[in-house]
C-alpha cells in the first residue's frame, strides 16, 4: 500500500509539474481514522495530501462535471468501479475524454464506514493500515484494531466485476488478478420472487423514510442534467412535499433515468443518510437491460451509450 501511495504522489507531482494536469482529484485523510475525503491538489508541493487505503470509498468522477469549465486538464484517481463513471461522462458528452487524465488504482475492495464504526473506535487519526490477508490491522491514534475484512467490506465489493480500472492513462499499483465475481443478481431474484403485496410493503416502507436530500442524485456520475427535473420549477414534475407518494415518484424516476446508464458504482447506496437500498432499484434495471437487450455493463467500454437511447428491430415484443 505504501508503494501505491508513493507511486500515486509521484504521478500526481509529475502531472502537475509538467502541466499535464491543472488539478488532481484524489483522496486525502479524513476527519476520522477510517474516513477519507476528496482532495483537490493543484500544486506539486501538496501531493503529500494524497493517500490510498481501504477507506477510499468516494467516487470522484462526479467532480469532473463540476470542474469541466476549468482551463487545463483534470486528473482524477479512480478505482475499478469509479472508472466506469469516466466512460459514463464521456459517452454523455459531459466532458471530452482528452480533458481528463485518469489515474487508475487496482482495488481489492473498500471497507464500509458504518460497518467499521460498529466494530471499532473510528475516531482519532489513521496512522497505518496493514493488510494481513483475511484481516486488516488498522493503527490509529486511539489504538490498534484488527478487523475481519469480510465483515467490513462494502456490499458492492463482494461482487466486483472490475478490480482493475477499465480506463486509465496511468496505473499505480499492481494489477489484481483475482477472478472478477460478476453479480448473478441473486438478491434481485429474491425480491422478484416476493408477492406483489410483500414487494409493495417493502418498498413503501423504504420510500417513506426518504428525506429527499438528493445526495443519491448529486453523487451520481450519470446524473449530469443541466437542470434536473426534480429542481425544475416549471412544470413541477414532482411535488416538494415529503410523503410516500412523492418520494416514490422521485425514486422510480431517478432510477429510471439511469436505466441502462447506471454504472453500478454503488455510491447512491452509500451516501443515503436514511439507508434506503437504492442500489436494489438500479440493479433490477441492470438485470433487465442485460436480459432483454443483452447490455454490457454500462461504462465498461469506451463506445456505447444509453441502452434506452438505442433499439434493435428484433427487440423482445410483449405489447402485441
Amino acid at each position, binding site marked *: 500500500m505504501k508503494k501505491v501511495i508513493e507511486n500515486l504522489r509521484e504521478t500526481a507531482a509529475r502531472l502537475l509539474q509538467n502541466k499535464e494536469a491543472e488539478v488532481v482529484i484524489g483522496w486525502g485523510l*479524513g*476527519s*476520522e481514522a477510517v*474516513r*477519507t*475525503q*476528496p*482532495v*483537490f491538489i493543484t500544486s506539486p508541493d501538496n501531493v503529500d495530501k494524497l493517500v490510498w487505503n481501504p477507506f477510499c470509498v*468516494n467516487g470522484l468522477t*462526479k*467532480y469532473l462535471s*463540476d470542474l469541466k469549465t476549468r482551463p487545463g486538464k483534470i486528473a482524477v484517481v479512480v478505482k475499478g468501479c469509479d472508472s466506469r463513471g469516466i466512460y459514463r461522462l464521456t459517452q454523455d458528452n459531459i466532458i471530452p475524454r482528452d480533458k481528463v487524465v485518469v489515474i487508475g488504482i487496482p482495488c481489492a475492495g473498500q471497507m464500509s464506514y458504518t460497518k467499521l*464504526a460498529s466494530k471499532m*473506535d*473510528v*475516531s482519532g487519526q489513521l496512522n497505518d493500515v496493514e493488510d494481513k490477508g483475511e484481516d486488516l490491522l488498522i493503527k490509529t491514534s486511539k489504538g490498534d484494531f484488527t478487523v475481519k475484512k469480510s465483515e467490513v467490506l462494502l456490499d458492492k465489493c463482494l461482487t466486483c466485476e472490475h478490480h482493475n480500472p477499465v480506463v486509465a492513462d496511468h496505473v499505480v499499483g499492481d494489477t489484481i488478478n483475482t477472478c472478477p465475481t460478476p453479480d448473478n443478481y441473486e438478491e434481485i431474484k429474491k425480491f422478484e420472487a416476493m408477492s406483489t403485496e410483500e414487494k409493495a410493503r417493502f418498498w413503501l*416502507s*423504504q420510500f417513506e*423514510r426518504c*428525506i*429527499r*436530500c*438528493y*445526495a443519491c*442524485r*448529486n*453523487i451520481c456520475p450519470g446524473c449530469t442534467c443541466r437542470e434536473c427535473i426534480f*429542481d425544475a*420549477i416549471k412544470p413541477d414534475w414532482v*411535488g*416538494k*412535499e*415529503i*410523503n410516500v407518494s412523492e418520494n416514490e415518484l422521485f425514486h422510480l424516476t431517478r432510477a429510471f433515468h439511469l436505466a441502462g446508464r447506471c454504472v453500478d458504482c454503488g*455510491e447512491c447506496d*452509500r*451516501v443515503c*443518510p*436514511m*439507508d434506503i437500498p437504492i442500489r436494489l432499484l438500479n440493479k433490477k434495471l441492470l438485470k433487465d437491460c442485460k436480459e432483454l437487450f443483452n447490455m454490457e455493463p454500462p461504462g465498461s467500454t469506451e463506445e456505447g451509450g444509453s441502452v434506452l437511447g438505442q433499439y434493435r428491430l428484433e427487440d423482445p415484443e410483449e405489447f402485441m
Partner: protein
Amino acid sequence: MANKSLKKVQLKSLLDKIAGSGQLIAPIQSDGITLFKPVQSGEGVVLDYQNAVIPPKDFFFPQSEKMFSYDTSDPTWAIKPEEGVPERVLFGARPCDVKSILLLDKVFDAEFRDDIYIDKRNKTTIIAVSCNDCRHTCFCGAFGISPGEAEGADLLFTDLGGRYLVEVLTDKGSTLAAECSDLLSDDDGNGPAAKEKAVAPAKEKQMNIDLEGVKAKLDNMFEHPIWAEESLRCLGCGTCTFICPTCHCFDIVDFNNQSSIGYRYRCADSCQFANFTRAAGGHQPRPSKMERIRQRFMHKLRYFVDRYGDFGCVGCGRCLEKCPVNLDIAQIINKVKEVG
C-alpha cells in the same frame, strides 16, 4: 419538586401508561435505523440508542406540514388553518436535541410568533434521557451542553443501572410525574451523585472541541479562501441540513389536485440547494457551492450568535456522520481556529 426514581423494569409500564392516555412519541428501530415515531405502547422503544438519525425537531417543525386548506369555489375561499396536534409526550430526547428545540424557540417564538410551531411546542411534554455513552461524533460539550442536563425538557431521566433518576424540571413535568406517581418513588438522595457518575463516560468520550475565538475569527472570514477550498468536495446535497436539529429553513408551496380544493404546506428546504435563493427572473445571490457552504457554517457559528445570542449548532454529530464527503463542522471549526 423532589427528584423521583423509577425502577427500570417499570419503564415499559410507564410508557404504556402515557401512550394509553395520549400520544407518545419515542425512538424505535426499524430496518436497522433509529427514528422517533408515534407509538401505541412502550413495546419496542429503544433506550440504548445514541442519536436518532432524524432529530425530534421533526415533531415541532416537521419536514413537511400542511398550513391551511382552501376551496376557491367558495366565495370566501374558505381558508382554514390546520387543526393543532393532540397533547402528547416526547420520550427519549437527548440533551443536545432538547437544546436544539430551545434554539428553534428563538426563531419561531420571536416577532411574528409562529402559531403552528407554538401549538406543537405547547402541547408537548418532553422527557429527556441523559446520555450514559456517546457517539464518536458527539461534541455537545463545545456548546456548553452536558450529557446529564436538559434545560428545556420537562422531565429528565438518567439511567443509573437498575433504576432511572427522574428529575422534574418544570410544572408540566410535575403534572406528568403526578399522573404516573404510582410507578415513581422518591429518590433516596443519592440520585444526583450517581447521575454524575453515570454520564461521566459520555463527557469523557466525546470530541473535545473548543469554540474560543471562533466567532470573532469568522467575523472577518467572509472573504477567506477556506470556503472555496472546502466547497470543492461538497456535493450540494441537503443531507446535513435535513438531519440537523437546528436548521429551520423552509419553503412554502401550494398543492391542489387539479381542483378548486387544495392546501398550502411548508416543507424543509436547504440552503445547499441552488433553488433556495434563486429569484424569479434568475437573480442568484449565491451562485455556487462556495457561497452556499459558507452560508451554512456562517449561519450556525456567526449569524445565529449575532441574532439570537447563541450558536446555531448543538454538537449532535449527525452531519459529521452522514455527510457523504466528510465535510465536517468540527473539522471546519478547528481549521478556522488555525487561520492566522
